[in-house]
């Protein structure tokens, strides 16, 4: 590049402006996570930063915080159910619409993706209205149904992206060699799209585990989920235990991310 050999005012200022903004963006992205982690080890009763002294007392206090534990358990169970159903429904739909350029496929694609851009809170309210009109009492099942609608798009998106990389010639040669549909799916299609499904399942789980707009309307007293419980803690008392819960969640997220990166190449699937 010519400007590398002869640094000018223009190239210096360009690099400076872009570098400064990018650096600020990086700081903005990373700092809050670090602040929460440091705060969670505080010895004090307030969210003072930097903490006056360090201890593990707030992590220890989680051991008998049964309300938080119950909420975490409900969220984990919910995430598992939602992910399983989303993967089955989403992958099947992706196989159907991924190879078609027809209008119905484009239409379905837009419909299945619309929960991503639609205000989720409005959908939460709509679900509440729907189930109460139908006379169905709110339960774990109705909560899961609401979550599936907003989680399916993630599976669909990553699976469709990985399907796009599958060479149709491979399917044709498998078929012309006498392989049946299921054999072809198992030996040709599945190995290609496995990473896409895996990354989609991971994001679907995280989105359900973190969902607020749907849970806000659909969760009843028996099925209180973790994010709602945390929100109530923060809104009412700014309890320092929230910092310890956040610390645990960050640690688990980082661990899961590293595992998913190794197993499914998560960062490549997200783009």
């Amino acid at each position, binding site marked *: 590049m010519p400007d590398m050999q002869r640094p000018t005012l223009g*190239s210096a200022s360009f690099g400076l402006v872009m570098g400064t*903004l990018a650096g600020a963006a990086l700081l903005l992205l990373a700092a809050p996570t670090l*602040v929460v982690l440091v705060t969670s080890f505080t010895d004090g009763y307030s969210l003072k930063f930097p903490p006056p002294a360090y201890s593990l007392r707030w992590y220890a206090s989680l051991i008998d915080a049964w309300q938080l534990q119950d909420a975490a358990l409900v969220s984990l169970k919910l995430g598992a159910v939602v992910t399983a159903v989303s993967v089955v429904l989403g992958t*099947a739909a992706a196989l159907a619409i991924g190879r078609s350029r027809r209008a119905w496929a484009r239409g379905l694609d837009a419909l299945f993706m619309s929960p991503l851009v639609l205000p989720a809170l409005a959908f939460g309210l709509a679900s509440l209205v729907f189930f109460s009109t139908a006379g169905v009492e709110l339960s774990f099942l109705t909560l899961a149904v609401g979550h599936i609608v907003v989680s399916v798009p993630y599976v669909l998106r990553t699976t469709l992206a990985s399907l796009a990389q599958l060479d149709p010639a491979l399917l044709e040669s498998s078929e012309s060699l006498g392989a049946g549909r299921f054999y072809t799916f198992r030996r040709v299609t599945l190995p290609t799209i496995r990473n896409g499904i895996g990354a989609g399942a991971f994001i679907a789980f995280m989105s359900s585990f973190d969902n607020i707009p749907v849970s806000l309307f659909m969760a009843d007293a028996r099925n209180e989920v973790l994010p709602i419980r945390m929100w109530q803690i923060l809104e009412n008392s700014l309890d320092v235990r929230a910092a310890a819960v956040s610390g645990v969640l960050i640690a688990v997220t980082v661990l899961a991310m590293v595992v998913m990166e190794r197993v499914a190449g998560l960062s490549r699937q997200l783009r």
Partner: protein
Amino acid sequence: MTAAAITAGLAGPATAARTRIGREWTLALPLAAFFAVFFVTPLLLLVAVSLFADAEMTRFGLDQYVRFFGDAFNLAVLGSTLYLGVKVTALTLLFGYPLAWLYTRSGPRMQSALILVIILPLLTSVVVRTFAWIVILGRDGIVNTLLLSLGLAETPLRLLYTEGGLVAALVQVQMPLMVLPLITTLSRLDPNLLDASAALGAGPWRGFWKVTLPLSLPGIVAGCLLTYAASVTAFITQSLVGGGQMLFMPQYIYQQTITLHNWPFAAAISIVFMVSVLGVVMLFNLLGRASKGYVHA
């Protein structure tokens, strides 16, 4: 049967592929049925409920919509919500674009470190990220501690529950949604174009405005769309960092439903909110289509 198989074989793989695809559409049926019952029907029902004239749902009428548009307070809430999204999206683009640019110019080792920093907030719980901002902006928070120790302020400033604090928090929370599509578009950009621009005597600023930026418009549109849609509906961040001082549409809907039990009005403002957001999204999409045409030209 045999004759059909032979003709299919003679016609070549294209026909075989077509028959296979011909049956595959049935795989979309389960999800289509699921969406029809649990997504489309509830939304239609929401429209129906919004058409009740009274909170007890006895008479039909457009009263809820008349009430919404007849009150300047409601219009102000809608306006400030939509405007909040614009501010957050613009700032996210300002900081996110250089970050995506930096990513495409880094080596593979640096790239994996950067992508980790970009994705981690996306996967960390929104409550946790919002909580971080309470710690940062609070009375004893990091910003106030810094200002006090530097002597820039004499008493702790009120940063939490202000619109500036809320915008900062939302920019951080939604940044990954902007950066990821930008990285995708910028990585696909042909580096020869910039080299050609430089060889023809254009400086880096000119090359950026005339080559890089126009060619990355589809990524900008995709990023803005996701960021905008997410920031106007960010109930948790809006209610915790914004506090009770400012009212935005999501809290307004929640309040009307859970606290006041006025379902028809809650449904009506939900519909107004949804239509407004979809309107903005469609506008973005139109821009995106126009920009794609620009890229091919």
